[in-house]
C-alpha cells in the first residue's frame, strides 16, 4: 500500500472514531439541541408565507437552514482546532510520523460527518413538518451535491485558517457572535430582498447566503424564485463565490497550518495549561 493511502486511511479511521464519540452518551444531547431548536422554529412559521410567494415560510426556511448548518462547519473546525491546540492533541500529532496529515484528514471527516448528520436531522423530520419542499428531481440532487461539496470545502478550510490564527478557545467562542449576525442578514429565516440594499451586498460577500440560496434552488419549486434577488437562482454566481472562498481557503490553510504546527512544543502546551489553571483556580 502506498504511504499516502495509508495516511488517508488512518486519518479517515481517526475521523470516524471521533465522529462516533461526538454522537454517543452525553455529547448526543448537545449535538441535537441546535437542529431541534431550528426545527421547532420552522414548525412555528409553517403557516406564514415567504414574502409574496406561495411557498410557506417554514418550507422556504428549511433549505436555507441546511445552508446555514453547512456554514457552521467553519465554527466547528475553529472550536476543534483551538481546543486541541491548547490540550496538546496537535503536539501529539506533530510527534508522530505523518501525524499532522492524519489529524487533519480526521478533522475533515469528523466535521463533515457532523454536518451531514445535522442536515439529516433537519431534513428528515422537516419534510413532514413543513410544506412546499420538493425532493426527488435529479437536477435538485445534483445541485445539492455540488453546493454541499463546495460549501464544506470553503467553510472548513476557512475554519482551519481562523482556528490556526486564534490565540485561544476563548477567542473561538466570540467568533459565534459575528456568525450569528451573518445568519440575521443572510436571508436564512426570511427572504433577503426584504432587507436594505447595502445589507444585501454585505451578505453576498460571505458563503452563508449562497449556501442558503443553493439549497433553496435544490429543494424549492421553481416559482419560489420570485422572492430571490433578481428573481433568479444564480447558480453561476453561487459557484463563483463559493468556489472563490474554497480556493482561498485551500491556498491559505496549509500555509497557516504549517506555521502554527511548527510553533507547537511541550513548553507551549504547558504554558497554556498553566495560564488556564490560573484563570480557573
Amino acid at each position, binding site marked *: 500500500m502506498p504511504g499516502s493511502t495509508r495516511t488517508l486511511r488512518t486519518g479517515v479511521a481517526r475521523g470516524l472514531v471521533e465522529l462516533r464519540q461526538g454522537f454517543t452518551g452525553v455529547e448526543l444531547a448537545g449535538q441535537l439541541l441546535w437542529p431541534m431548536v431550528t426545527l421547532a422554529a420552522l414548525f412555528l412559521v409553517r403557516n406564514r408565507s415567504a414574502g409574496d410567494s406561495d411557498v410557506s415560510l417554514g418550507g422556504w426556511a428549511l433549505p436555507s437552514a441546511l445552508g446555514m448548518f453547512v456554514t457552521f462547519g467553519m465554527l466547528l473546525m475553529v472550536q476543534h482546532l483551538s481546543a486541541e491546540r491548547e490540550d496538546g492533541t496537535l503536539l501529539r500529532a506533530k510527534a508522530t*510520523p505523518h501525524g499532522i496529515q492524519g489529524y487533519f484528514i480526521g478533522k475533515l471527516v469528523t466535521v463533515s460527518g457532523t454536518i451531514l448528520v445535522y442536515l439529516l436531522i433537519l431534513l428528515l423530520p422537516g419534510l413532514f413538518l413543513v410544506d412546499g419542499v420538493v425532493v426527488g428531481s435529479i437536477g435538485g440532487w445534483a445541485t445539492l451535491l455540488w453546493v454541499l461539496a463546495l460549501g464544506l470545502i470553503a467553510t472548513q478550510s476557512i475554519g482551519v485558517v481562523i482556528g490556526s490564527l486564534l490565540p485561544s478557545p476563548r477567542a473561538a467562542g466570540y467568533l459565534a457572535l459575528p456568525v450569528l449576525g451573518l445568519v440575521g442578514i443572510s436571508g436564512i429565516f426570511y427572504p433577503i430582498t426584504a432587507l436594505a440594499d447595502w445589507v444585501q451586498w454585505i451578505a453576498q460577500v460571505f458563503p452563508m447566503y449562497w449556501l442558503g440560496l443553493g439549497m433553496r434552488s435544490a429543494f424549492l419549486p421553481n416559482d419560489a424564485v420570485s422572492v430571490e434577488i433578481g428573481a433568479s437562482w444564480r447558480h453561476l454566481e453561487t459557484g463563483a463565490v463559493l468556489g472563490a472562498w474554497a480556493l482561498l481557503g485551500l491556498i491559505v490553510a496549509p500555509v497557516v497550518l504549517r506555521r502554527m504546527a511548527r510553533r507547537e512544543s511541550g513548553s507551549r502546551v504547558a504554558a497554556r495549561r498553566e495560564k488556564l489553571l490560573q484563570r480557573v483556580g
Partner: protein
Amino acid sequence: MTRHQQIALRIDGLRMRYGTAEILTDVTFQMRHGEITALLGPNGAGKTTTIEVLEGFRQPSGGQIEVLGTDPAQGGSQWRARVGVVLQSWRDHARWRVRELLAHQGRYYTRYATDLIERPWDVDDLLEVVGLTDHADQQVRLLSGGQRRRLDVAIGVVGRPELLFLDEPTAGFDPEARREFHDLVLRLAAEGDTTVLLTTHDLNEAEKLADRILILDRGRIVADGTPSELARQIVGDDLVRWTHNGQRYVRSTTDSTSFIFQLFQQYGDAITDLEIQRSSLEDTYLHLVRQAEAGAGTTTSPELGEVA
C-alpha cells in the same frame, strides 16, 4: 555489539536566545546507542529548551545538532518514526479508549517496520508492559494521573523508537508512583534496546536511571560522566578543620590529602581535632541549585515563563 559504539546524538555549541535573554549559551554533548542519559539541572537551567531542540520542536539560534544522523529541524517522517517523544498529557484524546488510542497511534508506524525492528509494538503486549491491560477499554479521561502518564509512555514507544525523549517524566509523582515509573523506564530501555534521554531536576532520579549524567546550569553543560565519575570530576572543595594551640581553624582545599600532609610536616602532632569533610555530588548539585535560585528571574525569558 558494535551498534553501541555508534553515536545516536551529537550536539555541538547549541545556543538559544530570545531577544536579549540567552537561555542556552553553549551546550555540547554526545550520546551513544543504548545509553540512558539524564540531563540534570535546576529549574530554569534550559533542560526543556535543549530537549525540545533535539525533538525537532524548536529552532535553535545556533550550533550543530545531529539526532540519529539528521538535523532535527529538517527531520522528515522517516526520522520522526525512529524518535519517540513522551509528552505530558493533559486532557487530549479524553474520550478515546486506551486500546483504541494506542492502536491508532501505532498505525502511523506500520510502514516503517524493518527486518530488525517490528513496528508498531503489539498493542496488547505494550499494554501489558505499561500495566494498563485492565484499563484497555476505559476512556482516557477516567484514568488516574499515574495511569495516564504510563499511557503517555506507551504512546511514546508504540513505534518502537531507537531514541526516546522524556521531559521531567516524574514531575508531580508521589514516591510510590515514581518508583514504578523508574522500573518501567528501565524495563523499556532493556527490552527495546532503546537509547533514552530524560530531563530531571532530581539527582536521585538521575543516579537511579542513568548510565550517564549531564548537569546543565545556566545554559551550559557543567559536568558530564557516570555518577561516580561526576563525584570525582566536579567535587567542590573539601573542608578541613583542625585545632592548633587551642585555636580552631577551617580551610577549604581541592586537594585535602596533600594539604594535610603539609600541615603535619609543619606542626607535627601539635595538630588536634582534625576533620575532613569531603564534598559529595549531592552537595555540589545542591550548591548549583541554590545559586540558580538566588539568581532566578535573570535567566528565565519573559516570553517562555517557566521553562525548565
